[in-house]
């Protein structure tokens, strides 16, 4: 970035990022997997795959399936557990010199709180609460789709850590604003949205679901209009920074989310299609700012014109 170029830096929940572009949880492994394809030190932040208290095996295959302009996944939170994450993944992740946001998932409020305490360590810059994974239904809870449980969870985590807490919202709800408000009132420092839409597809020859888990999460460009709408809705209702995601493939798409109200964006499925997507998005945003005389990228946030 030359000194005359646009200022791409953003602050989200106190996390200083050199640009607003990060990875979406679960689509970028722990970063290392993509090291050969792009320079990770150029990213705004890295968001990890969900980490749970104990190791998880994940769901039986098939776990992914393409759908029109999208994909279904039912990975099922496979991960080595918090201990192994801290010992084996985190040291490598820190080396890239960009903020590390750890996506966490648990079976209960207690487990989330415990995880938050464990992960409040050097090298972790923020926690993202995966309250919306379709699989987190144990203990009779269905976080993320009702306000009281989301609020309770967010508050418990906020109370267990001094790291910024980002609550990741599920799109599978009647009114996402309500949930966003609950998270805000519970003290969350930022919101990220959207997680995947719950979907399903069927092999008509075998008459079986394509996914081993029957249903899965729909991601990719197909869901972008839903994601942009939700970011727009939440941004008008809640005074917290938003990390917008859902089908971002290009700088154009990223800018759409920022205009709708996002302070930063995350790239998910597009990483699979083109491993260098985030680099291209960062450059494309800079180009756009130059072309449109935008001095600071943060000016784009919520700059949608509606008359």
């Amino acid at each position, binding site marked *: 970035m030359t000194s005359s170029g646009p200022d791409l830096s953003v602050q989200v929940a106190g996390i200083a990022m050199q640009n607003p572009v990060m990875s979406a949880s*679960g*689509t*970028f*492994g722990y970063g290392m*997997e*993509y090291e*050969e*394809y792009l320079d990770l030190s150029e990213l705004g932040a890295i968001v990890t*795959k969900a980490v749970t208290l104990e190791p998880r*095996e*994940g769901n*039986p*295959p*098939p*776990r*992914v*399936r*393409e759908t*029109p*302009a*999208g*994909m279904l*996944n039912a*990975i099922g939170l*496979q991960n080595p557990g918090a201990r192994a994450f801290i010992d084996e993944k985190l040291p490598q992740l820190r080396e890239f010199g960009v903020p590390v946001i750890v996506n966490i998932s648990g079976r209960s409020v207690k487990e989330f709180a415990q995880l938050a305490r464990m992960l409040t360590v050097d090298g972790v810059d923020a926690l993202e609460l995966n309250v919306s994974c379709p699989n987190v239904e144990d203990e009779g809870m269905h976080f993320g789709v009702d306000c009281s449980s989301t609020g309770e969870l967010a508050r418990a985590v906020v109370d267990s850590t001094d790291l910024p807490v980002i609550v990741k919202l599920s799109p599978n709800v009647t009114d996402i604003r309500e949930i966003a408000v609950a998270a805000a009132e519970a003290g969350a420092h930022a919101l990220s949205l959207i997680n995947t839409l719950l979907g399903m597809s069927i092999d008509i020859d075998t008459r*079986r679901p394509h996914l*081993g888990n029957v249903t899965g999460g729909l991601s*990719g*460009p*197909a869901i972008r209009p839903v994601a942009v709408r939700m970011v727009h809705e939440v941004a008008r209702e809640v005074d917290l920074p938003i990390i917008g995601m859902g089908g971002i*493939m290009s700088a154009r798409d990223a800018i759409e989310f920022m205009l709708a109200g996002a302070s930063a964006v995350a790239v998910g*499925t597009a*990483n*699979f*299609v*083109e*491993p260098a997507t985030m680099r291209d998005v960062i450059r494309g945003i800079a180009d756009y700012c130059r072309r449109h005389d935008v001095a600071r990228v943060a000016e784009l946030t919520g700059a949608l014109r509606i008359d």
Partner: protein
Amino acid sequence: MPRAVAHLKRRETVGPGHYLLHLACPEIAASAQPGQFIHLRVGDGTDPLLRRPFSVMLTNPDEDDVQVLVRTVGRGTELIADHEEGKQYDLLGPLGHGWPKPGPGEDIMLVAGGVGVAPLIFLADSLRTVEDRPYVRAIFGGADQDALVCWTEFASRCEEFTAVTEDGSAGETGLVTDVLVPEIERDRPQRAYACGPDAMLAVVAEICAGAGIPLHVSMEQWMGCGVGACLGCAIPAAEGGYVRVCTEGPVFDADQIDWERMNER
């Protein structure tokens, strides 16, 4: 950096719904090992969205030539079947772990089902130039003679070759495993390699385990990223949990796989 641009030099129809792509791709031609795959972007838009994995069938580094065998089964492979010469592909690769090399002079058995022949042709080809080369026997099976694509490329690289079709339209009649059992009884190979449908691999694994023959299998699974990041391509591991086809595989020792859980679907 494991990525490259490839030009389609020629597309050969090698059977109904089967195409052999001759790609100009110096990087892959120079570095691909038998059993590795490339992750190819079929279009530049969202239809299809994800890349598609294909084994490398042969390389010729002197001519920057990479051969890929493609069977049309859906949208992506049908688009490939329509691509004109000169078409440019963006690809990641070579990816994954290829076949372990046999020991010097070993007696080995290759078992191929349908397009599963591709990585085995590459293996057989690579063994031609090694010193004290192994003795290579091969069994190639398919539903009918049309499924035995590129069989001459395969047969010509092996010491012994048996074709088998379910309908008897070429070679013996039956399944590859019907041939494998007597072949093993006749002369027990020291090592076996197999690639084909899951169901075939499961039976081959059982046979080889029973006969105490080390077996290497190349597995398939739906992929997201192809580079180990999404955990989409997991298959059940013998030690519990799952392994990734794209990263730990696509070639595995047969005893790394939990064949019982594999068969659950």
